[in-house]
Structures are given as C-alpha cells and as structure tokens.
C-alpha cells in the first residue's frame, strides 16, 4: 500500500508555491498601498497577504509558518491594527478635529492629512485582517486540547 505523502514532498506543489508566495505577498502590498488610487484597500490586501501565508503553511507545514509568524506575534498584530485605526482617530481629536477627520492631521495641507489618514487607517485594517485570518488558520491546525469537564 502506498504511504500518503506530505504535501512538501510533491515537487510541483513545492516549486510552484515557492515561486508564487512572494508574488502573492507583493500583490497584497500593491493592493494595500494602491488602494487610495484604484480598487483595493486594507481588507482585500489583508486577505491576500494571509492567503499567501496560509499557502506556505499548507505546503511546508504549520511549524515552518510559525517560525515566520509566531502565534504570539499574530495575536499582537490583531490588536495593533485596531489600535492604529482608532489611534488615527484619537490623533485627529487631539489635533482639534472630529474623530477620524483626517484633514486635522496636517492643518496646513488638509489634503495631505487626508492622504496620510486613509493610508494609516487602511494599513491598520490590513494588519488586523491578515493577522486574524492567520490566527484562524492556526486555531484550525492546532491539536485540540484535552476535553473539558
């Protein structure tokens, strides 16, 4: 009987995914930072980024992925993104505007402020979405703990 093989032993999968993962991550960054000019934005970019990571994890194993993204760092990312988003809002309030009124970030050039504000907010969305999806992947891939009571 044939032994089931690990995915990383499949030559085609390994070679193709090794070539694809960097491209997927690059595309995610493009969608992230080009989001204010064209279609895209933090949510989509985060999903694409996480998809690249999850592909890597599927082929090369959870342990290898967790060497790149330790679970603790993923947990931090979830919080950090939200903090960045809300932090921009707090910064605008401190600078005398309403919550998330980006113009207040740069009083002399409100348009620059708007650019900066939306860029940071979308970055926050991207970080949280990517981290959350990777965290879900980790949770599903984990060996279940001992049953309770």
């Amino acid at each position: 009987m044939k032994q089931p093989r690990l995915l990383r032993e499949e030559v085609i999968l390994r070679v193709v995914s090794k070539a694809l993962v960097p491209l997927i991550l690059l595309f995610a960054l493009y969608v992230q930072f080009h989001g204010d000019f064209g279609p895209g934005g933090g949510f989509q970019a985060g999903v694409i980024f996480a998809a690249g990571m999850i592909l890597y994890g599927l082929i090369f194993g959870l342990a290898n992925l967790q060497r790149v993204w330790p679970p603790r760092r993923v947990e931090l990312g979830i919080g950090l993104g939200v903090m960045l988003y809300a932090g921009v809002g707090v910064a605008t309030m401190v600078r005398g505007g309403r919550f998330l009124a980006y113009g207040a970030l740069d009083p002399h050039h409100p348009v620059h402020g708007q650019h900066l504000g939306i860029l940071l907010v979308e970055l926050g969305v991207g970080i949280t979405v990517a981290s959350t999806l990777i965290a879900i992947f980790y949770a599903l891939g984990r060996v279940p703990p001992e049953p309770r009571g």
Partner: protein
Amino acid sequence: MSEHLPILQVVVPLLAGPLCLLLRHRLLVRGLATAVPLACLTIAGLLLHRVQQVGAISYHIGGWAPPLGIEYRIDLANAYVMVIVSAIAAVVMPFLPGHMGSAMVRRREHLFYAIFLLALAGLLGISATGDMFNAFVFLEIASLASYSLVALGRHRRALVAAYSYLIIGTIGGTFFLLGIGLMYQMTGTLNMVDLAHRLPEPMSPGTPGSRTVLVAFAFLAVGLSIKLAVFPLHQWLPRAYAHAPSAVSAFLAATSTKVSYYLLVRVVFSLFGAAYVFDALKLDRLLLPLSIVAMFAGSTAAIFQTDLKRLLAYSSVAQIGYMTLGVSLASVTGLTGGLVHLFNHALMKGGLFLAAACYGMRLRSSRIADLAGAGRLMPWTTAAFVTGGLALIGVPGTAGFVSKWYLVLAALEQGRWLVAVLVVASSLLAVAYVWRVVEVAYFADRDAGAHPIKEVPPLLLVPTWILIGATVYFGLRTELTAGVAEAAAGVLWESLR
C-alpha cells in the same frame, strides 16, 4: 474635550480591548479592564447630565455632516441606556478573574478581557449611534463577543450553547441587515433622523413602496425580537445564560437584551412611528398576547428548573415579557413602564446572577438542591438573593414594584382590566420560583458528607450588594428612575421628526 464625549464613550473600550492584547501582563490588564468601565460610566453620566440640560447632542464622525456622514446622536433615551450598560460592566468586573471556568481561560486572561471590552464597546456603540448601518456593525461586534464569552463556560455544554446562540443570533442580525437594506432602497439614507423624515412618504398605503417598507419593518422587528428573546424566539436565552460563566450571564442578562430592547423601541417609535406600527399595522394585537404568554410561560418554566442559573434565565424570558408589554400598550405610560423595567430588571437580574456566581464559587455547582444550608453558611449572599427575589416578585419598596406599577397604570389607563390583573397574577408565579430557592437555602440541611462552604470574600459581596442595594434604593426613590424614564419615553414617542 467635552464635545468629543459621544465618540469617547465608544472609542475608550474599543481601544482598551486590543490594548489588552498588547499589554499581556496580568495586573496591567486587570487594572485597565477595571478602569475602562468606570471611565465609560463617568462619560455616560456626563452625557446624561448634558442631555438633560441642552437636549439631543449630535457628533459628526470625520467632520462629515449627516445624513451623508455617520452621526452619533445622544438623547435622553440612549444616554439612559449607556449609563445602565457601563454601570453593570463596572460592577461585574471584580467577578471576572476569579470566576472563569477552565484553566485555559485563566492562562490567557488578557484575551478574555479583550473580548469583554469589545462586547462593552459594541453595546455602547449600538446605543450611541444615530446611523442604522453603524448600529448593525456594533450589533455584530457585541454579538460575536457575546458568543465567545458564553463559550468560556465551565462545561463542554457551554460550547453547544454558544453555537446555538451563534446560529440564532446570526439569523437575527441578518434579518436586521435585510431590513436596513430595504429601508435604504426606499429612502436612500441610513441616518436615523433622516429616515424618520423620509419614511412616511413610501410608507403611506397605496404607494408602490408601501409593501417594501412593510417587509423592511417585519425584518427589523423579527430580527431585533430574536436578539431580545421575545417569547417564541427565546430558545437560545436559557441555554446561553445557564452555561456561560456566571459573571458573564450577569453582564449579558443585564445589558445585552436591554440594548436590543432600546434598539427595537427606537425603530418602532422613532423611525416608523406609533401611528404606523399600532394604528396601521396593529402590532399590539400580536405583541400583547405574546408578552402575556411570555410572562406566564417563562415564570412557569422557571418554577420547574433544577438549576439556579437556568431558573434565572427563564425568569428573564418572563421579565422581557413585561418590557415588551410596555411597548404593546402603545402609550407613553406603557413605554415608561417598559423603560423603567429595563433599568430595574438590569439591576435585579444582574444582582441575582452575581449572587449565583457567589454560590457557584463556593458550591462548585449551580444545582438548586446543592444550596442546602447556604442560608446559614453564606448569610450575606443568601440575603442578597432573597432581596433580589423580592424585587423580581415586585414587592412594594423594591424596584420591581415601580415597574409593575407603571405597567398596571398604563393598562388601566386604556381600561384593559384583564391585562392589569394578569400582570399581578404572573407576579405570583415569581413568588413560587423564588420560594423554591429560599426554601432549600434556609430550611434544608447540608449533607454531612458535602464539602464545607463559607461566605465569599468582600470583593465579590460588595458588587453584588451594590446592585441589590440599588434595587431597594430605586424602589424607594422612584423619582430618579421613573423621572428619567418618563422623559426618555417622551423623547422616543415624539419620534425624530
């Protein structure tokens, strides 16, 4: 800073939640999680005070004027709800670390606090916002956080309870969103004030849009009724409250259904208006019988429970019946009764669940039979439970009496003698289920072989007694709650037009 209070009310807990993830250190996280609800309570108190003086406050997110931008609109009704929600969160906090079920939770305490603060942010957001879609987003934040809080219960069954809560809650949320979508289709706006202005046109019978508006109202009403656990849609509630950690049950029972009630009342009275809902649709003909059935079925089911938390949960179903009865009487007095009961029930059910949490900590069980001897060995906890029970029954001098007084008054105002009699009669059922607990706690002897129990530490007794004491205080000083509730009912009744 004071002009930013409406948004700070929501952003403070929303920022503190993820901050817990970054801090990780147990003491720092506990300190933060204790301070934030107190800060929220202060903000809510300031807002209520301001609203009482100057009327509704509008805050434009991002500086974009409504109806295009998202508006946070604080008036007497939602300031009142936000005070209740943040007060309960502040009081429940000392219970959270000590009472968490599994070892897994204790090891990752910071995650638990993050979820709890997100739930608080969601509930406050639903109350603060003046934008329907924003309300939906916060409803989802609050609900998703509640599902995971319920899942943290001591037993494996908590997972099943959380899962069924998740399924039914998601259906409720989806219905709510469908209703918003249909309203948006007919009016092109999501802002509550703007909706109240634009809805009458497609609403009037005979126009092509009237059916769409009717369907929108149906989706909104059913969706919110699921979240509120109105009688035939209440199945998720007893399971979720029985299996959640007791402190979480106290928090959810005292806040989550209350906020849903606020949102339902806002939609019914402020957006669609009493004339449409009661004169044209005759919703009262459906809601009134359902409320009365809830009062009796919930209380009767509570009498036959063997588990203390499940008993309290079924009693909640009955108490929600009283609140919806206030809506279905379709009068300012009735709505006042409903809003007063919202406040009073939050105090007494919160206090009773906290007393159940005290029992759970010492007895390591929530079975009523295991309470034997607790009256002597845990006198303060049992006294708190009895006082809270008296308030549930509606004994004069407790807060429960005030709410029932207003409901009976509203029923008599319309000459509905039968309804008034039924409100009083259903209170007698409450005597039965409260007595079952009292009987075991005071008159049954503890088994010789059972493990010894003693009173819980003051850290847990004080919050329990704050809530129980408040039910007595507001039972005697009725002008405080009834005054605000009456004014809030007036604000809601006038609609936003």
